[in-house]
């Protein structure tokens, strides 16, 4: 999805998104359908929605939070953790 917003124009070209994301066309089409179903993009023309932009912003913030707290995934076996 980041590739769609990285496009210089507000409308992204599917071939350019495919090139930048390095995905096979069928896989890209599947992902675009899924993102459209979740109302994060619209496909014709290819545009990111407000919900999509919000998601990207949250994604960055969550990444920063994880980094700042020094945590990884939460399903690490308990015996590998010294905490509770």
């Amino acid at each position: 999805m980041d590739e769609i917003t990285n496009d210089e124009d507000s409308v992204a070209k599917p071939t350019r998104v495919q090139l930048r994301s390095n995905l096979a066309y069928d896989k890209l089409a599947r992902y675009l359908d899924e993102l459209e179903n979740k109302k994060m993009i619209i496909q014709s023309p290819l545009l990111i929605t407000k919900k999509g932009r919000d998601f990207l912003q949250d994604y960055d913030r969550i990444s920063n939070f994880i980094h700042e707290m020094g945590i990884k995934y939460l399903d690490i076996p308990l015996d590998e953790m010294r905490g509770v």
Partner: protein
Amino acid sequence: MDNKNKNDSKNYRPMKFVDQMERNKHILLLYDDQKYAYWIVGRYFHYGFAKGESCMFYTSDRPEIIEKHLSAGGIDVSLFKQKNLLRIYGIERSDDNKHNIPHALNQIREEYTKDMKPPYRRVGGTITDVQTIDGIRFNILLEKAGHQHFDEFNYSQICYYDISRIEPTRKHEWISSLLRNHHYVIYASEPNKAVAFETALLEQDDK
């Protein structure tokens, strides 16, 4: 709250998440600035009152301090207390009498909500010592016991922690454990860093 603060809090990123949280959720509020933590609590209560839910705050601080913060956030404390929709409990500052986990949980669940109408929204921290290894460890044990049976009760709860006070040598482990034992986390920090999400997002799905 002055107009600028009111506007800033309205645009604060986690607020929408607070409004959309489902019922019966166990929420971890991590903060590095008390001001933002009170924004979250104020919004959480405000939304609860709008839905006719009973709200309670238990604290080892003086209840008047909490009342002052809630009032500053625009909540009519006297009115909601009068309507029996708001209670602010002062709990013991010492943790010596809290080591019986079933008793501590029972107190939180039943005594604090007595004669109030469900569903409940609660905010609190039972254990005051999070600065020592024993203190934070016991705190997590209590969180874990509460979380395991959380679905059986008709309330949601925000457990709040000042990140700067958490025992520092294994902070990331304590925070991981806290995250594992809550449904949602709200990180109340500066507006460009604050975020809220479901902790399940931090589980690997490709095992």
